[in-house]
């Protein structure tokens, strides 16, 4: 019997976001691995199936998270190779800001074992709803906070900028679960190259339990240094400038419109004799 792997997401809100197909995969699995964000939601998943194995014990402060993630992948793949129908359950969307699912699926496919990711409701999805942000209005750029610091990335001050995992921004060791104000000052200094210090930013945390509350705390950018941040806190930076027209492209498009004015008035049907 060939094993298989499906990575599913519970969405953010316990009970409210999990899809019917994800629920079905969980019910029909031989083995479940879970990586949830709260103890209560982890228990919820445990109560869905007789064999649920948490991946949380692999985490250890001071241990490089890349090693942790690879150990998680190996635990999952061991069961797939043994011929079991394996389902890995992640909070949120299993393929968004989640390397374990991507690595596990990639490894399974390299071994010709069937594997795929089912879409789920991510923290980003909740963010747009909770903060009434339409990413299509002015555009929206997402970066992992540390990666944003380590590499030269472009900021468009006319678009929303969303930085994930800001609670441990600047951790080059991948071994910490929080970084202090000195690290955050480096991040703020980087952002101050583009935004004014009093620019209002939002600290966002999605509601994950029905008895939980969503966090949408507005603070000045400069105050980020001493703000209370958690692992699941996301930094949302609204646009500080208006979009500027790209006149060169607009001129080219205007010329094209003038060249083919008849195309808009062409009859839909022509009689061919």
């Amino acid at each position, binding site marked *: 019997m060939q094993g298989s792997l499906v990575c599913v997401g519970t969405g953010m809100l316990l009970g409210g976001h999990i899809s019917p197909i994800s629920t079905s995969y969980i019910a029909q699995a031989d083995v479940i691995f879970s990586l949830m964000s709260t103890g*209560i939601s982890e228990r919820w998943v445990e109560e869905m199936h007789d064999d649920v194995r948490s991946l949380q014990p692999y985490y250890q402060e001071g241990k490089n998270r890349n090693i942790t993630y690879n150990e998680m992948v190996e635990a999952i793949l061991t069961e797939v190779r043994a011929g079991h129908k394996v389902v890995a359950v992640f909070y949120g969307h299993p393929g968004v800001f989640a390397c374990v699912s991507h690595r596990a699926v990639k490894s399974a496919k390299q071994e010709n074992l069937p594997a795929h990711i089912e879409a789920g409701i991510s923290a980003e999805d909740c963010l747009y709803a909770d903060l009434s942000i339409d990413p299509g209005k002015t555009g929206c750029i997402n970066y992992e906070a540390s990666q944003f610091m380590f590499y030269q990335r472009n900021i468009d001050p006319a678009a929303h900028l969303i930085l994930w995992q800001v609670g441990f921004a600047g951790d080059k060791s991948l071994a910490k679960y929080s970084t202090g104000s000195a690290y955050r000052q480096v991040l703020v200094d980087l952002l101050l190259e583009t935004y004014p210090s009093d620019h209002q930013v939002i600290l966002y945390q999605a509601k994950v339990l029905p*008895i939980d509350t969503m966090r949408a705390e507005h603070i000045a950018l400069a105050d980020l240094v001493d703000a209370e941040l958690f*692992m699941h806190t996301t930094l949302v930076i609204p646009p500080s400038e208006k979009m500027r027209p790209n006149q060169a492209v607009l001129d080219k498009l205007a010329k094209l419109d003038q060249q083919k004015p008849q195309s808009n008035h062409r009859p839909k049907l022509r009689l061919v004799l």
Partner: protein
Amino acid sequence: MSKVMQVLEQMGSDASSQSDQAIEQLLITTEVNAEQAEAVINKDIISLERQLDVRLEMVCGVLPADDDEDEEKDDEDSTEETSNRVIGF
């Protein structure tokens, strides 16, 4: 599924279980014990976590800033003690 988890699941999925009154009624009909019911009504997550004896230390970062798994494997392969922990990359 335990009674309190049924309640939480319904609160998260049922449009008619959003008001305080509906939640209190739900807690009564599912016969959740008094202490857990109080935690749900008061939205006291810490109390509920302790009563359910769930894991308290949870990590929820699942993306490294540098997602170079091959490079990570090479680093690990050079360390005999830990090389057997990273397989498949």
